[in-house]
């Protein structure tokens, strides 16, 4: 205690505090990541809960929920609905949005400012207003909300996001590539088909993924325009009061891993393409 071992103690705390102050921002970011993932981890953990009816407290570990995710009534039909709606809305919104993005990115025309405004407004409007106004119109027209009104509303709010994503990709294209194609005997149609479209494709694919996830996850607008039709988020909301069934956690966690898988694969493919 007296001679040899005395110095390390203060030096250790000193070093530790220096390490902390130098890495403060990294530590902070680490905590933020933990915060982001707590509910995801919780949802995943409770997908293994042997919960019976209410999934509020931990009852014990089981794989049953994963083996039979359709076990709880309505879960799977809600998911199936959400997927159908998601796919339909994605296809329509991606086509319409990509067309607008090309008009904005590759053509001169009158009314560009109002077009941009019309694209921007739905993104600057709270969902509750989007949902309420569409419902107000359907009610005034005497339309009964259901599957198709959901699709209509989802396409409406996805278009803007598709336009913005695809437009960004088009804007980042070097115009000389298209000029080079025309210089090399490709007419307008061939230039679009062999050069422009393949180069914009990653942007379109990204926009489609974004549209699908927005549609699949939407609750507020859906809730206003769904009538008696159920979607997965709506199912979760309705059953939240008495604790959602563990099967819903299974679906949510599975979605998480599928999406993560797609993104990781996409990144790996992109990197390999660069390398090889």
């Amino acid at each position, binding site marked *: 205690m007296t001679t040899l071992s005395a110095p390390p103690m203060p030096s250790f705390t000193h070093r530790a505090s220096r390490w902390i102050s130098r890495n403060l921002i990294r530590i902070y970011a680490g905590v933020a*990541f933990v915060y982001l993932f707590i509910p995801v981890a919780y949802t995943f953990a409770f997908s293994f809960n042997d919960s019976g009816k209410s999934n509020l407290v931990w009852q014990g570990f089981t794989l049953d929920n994963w083996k039979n995710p359709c076990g709880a009534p309505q879960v799977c039909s809600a998911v199936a609905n959400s997927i159908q709606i998601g796919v339909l809305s994605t296809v329509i919104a991606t086509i*319409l949005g990509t067309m607008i993005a090309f*008009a904005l990115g590759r053509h001169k*025309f009158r009314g560009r400012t109002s077009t941009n405004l019309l694209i921007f407004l739905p993104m600057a409007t709270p969902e509750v207003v989007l949902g309420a106004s*569409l419902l107000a119109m359907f009610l005034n027209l005497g339309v009964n909300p259901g599957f198709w009104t959901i699709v209509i509303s989802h396409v409406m709010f996805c278009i803007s996001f598709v336009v913005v994503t695809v437009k960004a990709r088009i804007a980042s294209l070097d115009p000389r590539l298209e000029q080079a194609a025309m210089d090399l005997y490709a007419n307008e149609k061939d230039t679009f088909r062999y050069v422009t479209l393949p180069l914009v494709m990653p942007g379109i694919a990204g926009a489609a993924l974004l549209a699908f996830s927005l549609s699949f996850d939407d*609750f507020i607008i859906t809730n206003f325009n769904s009538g008696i039709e159920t979607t997965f988020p709506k199912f979760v909301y309705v059953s939240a009061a008495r604790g959602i069934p563990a099967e819903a956690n299974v679906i949510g966690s599975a979605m998480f891993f599928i999406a993560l898988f797609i993104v*990781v694969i996409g990144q790996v493919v992109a990197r390999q393409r660069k390398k090889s």
Partner: protein
Amino acid sequence: MAFLHGATRTHSGPRSGIKSRSITPYLLLAPGMIWLITFFIIPIFSLASTSTMVRPEGAQIGTYVQELRFQNYVDAFVANQEQYVRSFVYAGIATLLALAIAFPLAYTIAFKAGKYRNVLLVLVVAPFFTSFLLRTVAWTQILGDDGPIVSTLKLLPFFDDSLRLTATPFAVVSGLTYNFLPFMTLPLYASLERIDPRTLEAAGDLYANGFTTFKKVTVPLAMPGIVAGTLLTFIPAAGDYINATLLGNPSTKMIGNVIESRFFAVVDYPTAAALSFTLMATILIVVTLYIRKSGTDELV
């Protein structure tokens, strides 16, 4: 000077290559624009129209006729001003909190992550992949009265048994902060990433300390991201009612809750419409002022 001209013009977008003053752009625009006009613009007018309707005496519930009763707006606002103001206060606090959490996060990813940059970016987006509602429900259970946090805190001497985290303004604001955090982080990252780290070094070289560099160089350069991020957080947060429903109590209701219940529980369409319309108008005004003030036009 002339030579600046030549250099920029030859590379600028639509000018060169495929030119068109034909009807092609209109054909490309038409389907999407018709969709937006039919299912966004017309509904807004429909909403405006509904907002001044009145239920005739003795008529069935849900039946309204147009009487241009603008008093509806006054009535709706007076009856719900508390929730109305609360929505903006909660959304404002949540936006500031999200900014405080997201800025260091985005900064770390942009400047400190090295080769893990892409991995961290995926991690920021990844929570999105689990349903928004499931995550919020998870928070209600984590913060719940029987949940792990409250039970742990109750063991400590300075909390008594009445301690609650859910059904409080704290829970609602945390929920809002949490939900829109990625909307704040991604645009922030996008503009931080564009900053050349050498400009930060240059600031240090020119006698700016860490804080001054941050204030005078980093923040101004990140401004487009800050503006986009705060808007992407504030707008949906102000209109949200899920967090208030799941994490709050009757005294934390936001305007979204009122609109929803006026539509579905009370079937009072004119009030719901008037409130929606006021909310949208307020947000548009706030957004316009904010964009003007921050001097950033390139949002879309």
